């Protein structure tokens, strides 16, 4: 949609001259929700339900005040939205990579997770043809027989899938993974640019010890076009939000939510947590009021710290709600878009596994954001002209290498090596065809050497890379991601993240690989135990007496 055309104020997203959205009334959810009379607190170990939820929020959080500072001259009305920060994906993150991170968090939360199905929901899938869920599944190392699907085109797609998975109480023990991620790019100076956030969320449905169980769900389809984005277009075009509120949310959403409550035989007053993404001002409040849901039950949309995650927002808000909900509490989730989905769950007494996202790092350069999103074409010099054509034959031949960070572990000598090869790299072994596949994706590592290179082209200078050593063996020359310029040091603890390696802009392709990022949890833990850290650093010093001897004997 176009904004900033004098005399033609568009309401959806227009911000010039007047506060379109004076404040977004997002509320912190209440912790002291009265428990419903029919609580079932004691869960068996093999009940069907929601086993885990998660949110992944990229590290960078763009200060909205900095966005406003750039737009104030033509869109002073954005002031009302310019509070806090919004999450922005780094240059090497997209919906696929963020979904991978959400999936990995779920697997860390449920180590025995054996996902038989993966559904990936996003309206910003990087590939129109090529199964995006397939990229995610390969990075997660899902079994080849897992059933995968991409769902898209609506911000409610993920909730449709989640409700459907929860509704099908299948008896088999395998799990279903629903991941949603979004990296929406709004036109500069639009309200959406302020409101949107980048990130992912996910949920696991299956048998086990659920954190919540299905109570009821309802769905309505309605081709009410509040906004749209045609294939190939970058930005949304939207209609007046007062109409969207009155005809959309207050009729279609309210109707769907009522049907859901009716199916459960529940009263709106029983709802402890009401999670409804509402990027428009106070709509969730109005919907709650009309339904009869207590205003204190409104779940925070994390506007001031993250922003609206689009297709990932219903699952993200569900995660917020479940972490706050007391055992037995009823959690009502809604998602609006070309209709509405509603899902009613009951919280169990099983603790929510995994952690909530951290506060990330403040980003104050709006220009950096514009560049990361390709909305401004900066002078990158001739080094950026390199042709990054991918040989698809080679990519498939070595698929697991890049997708799953698959190296080899020699069965004869135990040496872990990357890439995996026919001959063992250990000169004392030289075993042939002795290497079993092993993934380094979840193995902790440390910096052996590093640099911050200002000559190489990268969308985020300097280009930081170095040799890293994996715990238990394995050495790889790798790029670093989400690293500050002065943060790298020899021995720094690292973990791996799945990222875009290169863009091939000539052909519209992108290739992915793993990068190393500081393991800030491990670093903080080590900082809390200074003595232990000192020992770890001492053992890390890469001294090898055998090699040291060569320097003297080699001289003779």
């Amino acid at each position, binding site marked *: 949609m176009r904004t900033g055309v004098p005399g033609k104020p568009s309401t959806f997203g227009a911000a010039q001259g007047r506060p379109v959205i004076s404040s977004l009334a997002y509320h912190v959810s209440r912790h002291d929700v009265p428990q419903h009379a029919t609580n079932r607190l004691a869960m068996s170990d093999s009940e069907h339900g929601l086993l885990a939820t998660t949110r992944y929020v990229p590290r960078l959080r763009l200060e909205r005040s900095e966005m406003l500072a750039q737009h104030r001259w033509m869109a002073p009305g954005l002031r009302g939205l310019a509070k806090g920060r919004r999450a922005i994906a780094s240059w090497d993150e997209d919906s696929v990579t963020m979904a991978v991170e959400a999936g990995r968090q779920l697997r860390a939360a449920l180590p025995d997770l054996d996902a038989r199905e993966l559904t990936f929901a996003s309206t910003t899938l990087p590939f129109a043809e090529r199964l995006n869920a397939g990229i995610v599944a390969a990075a997660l190392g899902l079994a080849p027989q897992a059933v995968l699907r991409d769902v898209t085109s609506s911000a409610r797609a993920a909730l449709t899938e989640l409700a459907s998975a929860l509704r099908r109480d299948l008896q088999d023990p395998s799990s279903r993974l629903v991941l949603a991620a979004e990296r929406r790019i709004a036109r500069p100076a639009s309200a959406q640019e302020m409101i949107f956030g980048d990130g992912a969320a996910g949920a696991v449905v299956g048998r086990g010890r659920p954190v919540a169980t299905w109570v009821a769900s309802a769905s309505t389809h309605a081709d009410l076009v509040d906004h749209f984005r045609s294939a190939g277009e970058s930005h949304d075009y939207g209609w007046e939000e007062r109409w969207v509120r009155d005809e959309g949310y207050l009729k279609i959403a309210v109707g769907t939510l009522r049907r859901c409550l009716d199916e459960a035989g529940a009263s709106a007053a029983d709802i402890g947590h009401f999670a409804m993404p509402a990027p428009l001002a106070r709509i969730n409040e109005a919907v709650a009021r009309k339904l009869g849901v207590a205003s204190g039950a409104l779940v925070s949309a994390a506007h001031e710290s993250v922003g609206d995650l689009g297709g990932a927002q219903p699952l993200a808000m569900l995660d917020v709600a479940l972490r706050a909900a007391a055992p037995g509490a009823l959690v009502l989730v809604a998602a609006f878009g070309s209709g509405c989905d509603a899902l009613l769950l009951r919280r169990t007494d099983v603790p929510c596994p995994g952690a909530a996202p951290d506060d990330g790092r403040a980003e104050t350069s709006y220009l950096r954001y514009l560049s990361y999103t390709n909305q401004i074409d900066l002078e990158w010099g001739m080094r950026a002209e390199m042709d990054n054509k991918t040989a698809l034959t080679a990519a498939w031949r070595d698929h697991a290498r890049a997708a799953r960070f698959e190296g080899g572990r020699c069965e004869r000598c135990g040496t872990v090596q990357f890439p995996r090869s026919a001959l063992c790299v250990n000169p004392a072994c030289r075993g042939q065809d002795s290497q079993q596949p092993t993934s380094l994706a979840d193995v902790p590592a440390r910096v052996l050497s590093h640099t911050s290179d200002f000559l190489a082209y990268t969308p985020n200078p300097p280009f930081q890379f170095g*040799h890293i050593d994996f715990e238990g063996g394995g050495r790889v020359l790798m790029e670093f991601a989400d690293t500050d310029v002065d943060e790298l040091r020899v021995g720094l603890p690292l973990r791996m993240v799945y990222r875009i390696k290169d863009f091939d802009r000539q052909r519209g392709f992108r290739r992915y690989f793993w990068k190393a990022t500081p393991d800030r949890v491990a670093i903080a833990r080590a900082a809390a135990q200074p003595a232990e850290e000192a020992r770890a650093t001492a053992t890390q010093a890469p001294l090898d007496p055998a090699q040291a001897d060569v320097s003297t004997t*080699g001289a003779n």
Partner: protein
Amino acid sequence: MAHGIRDKVAILGMGCSRFGERWDCGADDLMLEAFNEALADAAIEVGRIEAAWFGVCLEENNVGKTAGPLAQALRLPRIAATRVENACATGTEALRGAAYAVAAGAYDIVLALGVEKLKDTGYGGLPVRTRGVANDLWLPNATAPGAFAQLASAYAAKHRLGMKDLKRAMAHVSVKSHANGALNPKAHLRNRITEDDVLKAATIAAPLGLYDCCGVSDGAACAILTTPELARALRPDAEVVTIKAVELSVSNGEEASFSAWDGAHIATAREAGARAYASAGITDPRGQIDMAEVHDCFSITEAVLMEDLGFSAPGRAIHDVLDGVFDRDGALPVQPDGGLKCFGHPIGASGLRMVYEIYQQIHGRAGERQLKRVDRGLTHNLGGHPHQNVCAVSIVGRHGA
């Protein structure tokens, strides 16, 4: 039992073009400039040359494939010619091919020529390029300074050095090479610099600054080789300079993928150096080598090579550097011609340029930078990155030395 080529091959003549940003010269012009000097030095007709080895690294950037460009540029009379490439060690590879052919008795007189026309890219530094379709899927597209900067971080950590101290030693390396380059009329960079200039320069790849990096140059260098007997016969009045060793070591992925390497040394330099010393009968490099031209693509590379080649004890390189051991007036002058740092680095030519300096020094033709007496000199030529590379070491000296 084979034991190298010590004193089996003599250098009959050498030539080296002026190195630098030779905007007005193509690769043909550079080759001919070096060749004319060598041919005059050898005092033979071109028809005496029976075979040639042609070194060029980034052929897609300049001459294209095959040894044809050499044959054309020099109008060689349809003799055998072979193009060789081993990254930045290409020049020594050309020398090795030619020398081994003479040592084998296959030819009497051969040519080794290396050339690189780099300054046609439109930007500074080495050209960016693919690492191969399979490697591009995962390997960082590292620049040379970024790759060699790794050495500095690992070396400092290994020896518990503050980066400030290491940078001071690195600065000394560059100041020394600029001082030497200033005395070399063929050098690319002839300005003198101070330690302060080095430390205050812009960072290229931390901790390497601008003055820690060598020049990217156009140039060519060549050698005409023969047997010592023929050399004496053809030039009875001249000192016969022979090759004592040309040895090569190539990484097999161990440094890159096995956890034994400390990241702070060049494993192949140790291997190639040890073999060359064995071949040349050298047991005390610091005492028996009179000068060295090493692959100082970056200041830190030169520093760690002092240990890898046995000139400094482990961990002592920066002390020796700061004590001036490798200065032109030191106990073991390193890069008396300015090195890659200041003579310049036209990739395919560099290995031969190193030999050229030893050859000139032995003959007492090094002008203002002439050393006292050089009986034996060492060249070390490195292609690739510290963790994955080719190292070539040659030892050249007076016949019988």
